[in-house]
């Protein structure tokens, strides 16, 4: 589960041919993992295993709790399934299911995710615990990953296991202003995670039907150095429907997301373009949760 040292060549090779054009399983694994690494290199500090299509604010998804350590303000139980196709690569698809529940101010989330094809992908098991209220919340999250050799099992014999522990917190700085910070990889052990995810901070101005947010992800250990990568987003909702736009820099790119809710059922989809790597598409089906 290493692949931090890849370059753009891996993606280009995949686009010219197919996954089978890569000769050996070892190369294939490097390709898939490397592609994942590159994907997030290109998308800043975006999440990976449990990234759901949703605006940065409000926080209501179990995936956000697991991926960024940001718990929802309400204890409403949620269950969510997510499929992400990274940069149009069928071999690089993430499927995840996650759930969260709360009791008073306590929050708990668990999730299971698989990325890539059997034999070359990995499985991730995540858990998050935290506390939240109307004015703020924080959580610790842990993810364990292991290469997999079969579609459903978590049993790649001899494969290394990697663990990462991190957390996040948000707070309402003013009536309509919410600020968050997330450091998903405070501590890592074992096989290195496919993606380095440094500190991310952001703020959202919630004006009711319109939410504007701005985020900055510090980048450590990257060829670009310590530059920050910035995110600007706009969400607007009308009744059960919601639409959001996202713009990111380095390189400049954008995304569009839509969500619809019917009673406790929520469906969302998001497409994000990249000038070099193509489109990343996410879809989710959820029960419960917020807007």
């Amino acid at each position, binding site marked *: 589960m290493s692949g*931090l040292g890849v370059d753009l060549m891996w993606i280009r090779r995949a686009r010219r041919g197919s996954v089978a054009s890569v000769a050996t399983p070892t190369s294939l694994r490097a390709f898939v993992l490397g592609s994942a690494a590159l994907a997030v290199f290109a998308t800043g500090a975006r999440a990976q295993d449990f990234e759901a299509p949703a605006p940065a604010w409000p926080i209501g998804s179990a995936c956000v709790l697991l991926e960024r350590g940001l718990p929802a303000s309400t204890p409403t139980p949620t269950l969510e399934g997510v499929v992400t196709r990274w940069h149009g690569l069928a071999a690089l698809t993430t499927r995840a299911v996650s759930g969260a529940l709360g009791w008073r101010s306590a929050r708990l989330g668990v999730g299971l995710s698989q990325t890539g094809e059997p034999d070359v992908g990995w499985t991730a098991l995540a858990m998050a615990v935290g*506390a939240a*209220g109307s*004015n*703020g*919340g*924080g959580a610790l999250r842990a993810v364990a990953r292991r290469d997999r050799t079969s579609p459903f099992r978590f049993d790649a014999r001899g494969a290394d296991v990697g663990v990462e522990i991190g*957390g996040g*917190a*948000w*707070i*309402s*700085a*003013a*009536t309509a202003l919410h*600020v*968050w*910070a997330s*450091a998903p990889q*405070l*501590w*890592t052990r074992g096989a290195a995670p496919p993606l380095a995810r*440094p*500190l991310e*901070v952001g703020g959202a101005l919630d004006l009711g039907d319109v939410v504007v947010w701005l985020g*900055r992800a*510090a*980048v*450590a*250990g990257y060829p670009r*150095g*310590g*530059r*920050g990568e910035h995110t600007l987003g706009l969400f607007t909702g009308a009744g059960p429907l919601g639409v959001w736009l996202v713009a990111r820099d380095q390189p400049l790119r954008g995304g569009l997301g839509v969500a619809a809710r019917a009673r406790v059922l929520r469906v969302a989809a998001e497409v994000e373009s990249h000038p070099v790597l193509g489109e990343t598409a996410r879809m989710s089906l959820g029960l419960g949760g917020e807007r």
Partner: protein
Amino acid sequence: MRRLVLPLVLMFATCAHAQPVEPPPEAPEGVDYAAEPVDSLTDGDVELGMAAAGRAGSAPTKSRRVRFSGDELSGALREGSGDPLAGGAVEGHGALGAVTVGRLAPRWGRGLLMGAAGDPWQREALDRGSRAAFRGRAGDGVWLRRGRGDRFEALYGRFSKRALAGARVRLGRVTIGGLTDGHRGRQSSLAFARGAGESELAWDRAGRWRAEAVLDRRLGGRGMTDSMSTLEPVRRRGDGPLEGWSASLRVRAGAVGFASLAESGRLGPERALAAGLSGPAARLRVSLLGALWRFRPGVTGARAGLAVERPLAHHGTLALGVEEQHGSRRDPGPSGSLASLGTHAAGIRQGLWGEWWSGEGTMALGLRHESWGERAWVRGVVRSVTSARLEARGPAGFQLGITHSVYRVKRGESLYLPEDESDRLVLRALSGEGERTRIEARSPFGGGRMRAALHLASASERRERAQWTLDWTRRARIRKSAESHAR
């Protein structure tokens, strides 16, 4: 002055004055620096502390400390292998006056002979003198103070690796003092203080001299108020535009080659001009600083900065600042080259920083970003650090703090990250690119307070061994206070 420093001690605990910090010039470049904040004890109190620290895979180091305060005797002692703050001082009050034995950090007048400021733009030393925010160590020896307001002072000790003896007498607003090393080194000082103005002239046997004067002036009728330090709005209805504003001016001049016998690590510039302006504007507190200096011919520097602070809801604060520096910030010495000065290298440095803090009750969150560039508009970043800190309070006095920082420091530059430990402020020297996490838990334990901290760091994709510290402090009253006796 404490208002300038204590927020840095606590880093995120308050947001006022979020300026970047650096160790004093005598500290080695690129090495962690520890300073002891002044925390006074009530009369009759004694404080015991035990600490252990270590890295994964290596034996821990232990340290102990005791502080006590009484009518006639008070002191602080530290012991521990490798502890840069080891040592201490004991102060007794008797017929002779107040006698301090041990670590000494006196300040005379403007500090030209004793108690020099660390940086050219600083008004006063942060770790010298009785009102300093930190306990410094200029030397070790015996210090006698006698009379009302320390009318007479005498000291003998080892300062700057040499034995020195000195005395000072205050006659009204004038103070006369002298220092000698018993050989050819002899220096004298004449100081004058009146209201918010203070000046000092110092000279040595060779006729080299240095003079400095400082003047603080309230521009409005009311001037600085206590409420300004808490960032509350200070302008009242009917106030003039300059109400609450204050200005300061500091001028230094002298001959080349003058060097204090006691503070050889803080020679400072031979010429300097610094001006400051601060006050309220709307709901902001604005601070302006400008300074020019010359260490010696050809080694000059300048600094200008603007800082703005604004109180927010939920006890929050937002602080923003910009700054530009030119030239050398520290004297490389006659044989030193400017290129070897690291953060003090000649050339332009533009910096900006922002710090935000909010929270009340059980949780608080703070964010900070600081960036320095070697070209205009903070381009060509040479130092950059982004930090987030979460403070959470649990039941039974339990507190948890997590600080995570991501940094990038260009080769030849230095960046210091302040970390507040139970008995000290540590300026952690960072280099290269990396991340640093500090997880800290505090809880009542054994009649005192236990504090455990874990430091996780990685630099340039290299994971460093985890560091940990464990500290227990207990403060107890050994006798009833004077008020209790009176009752």
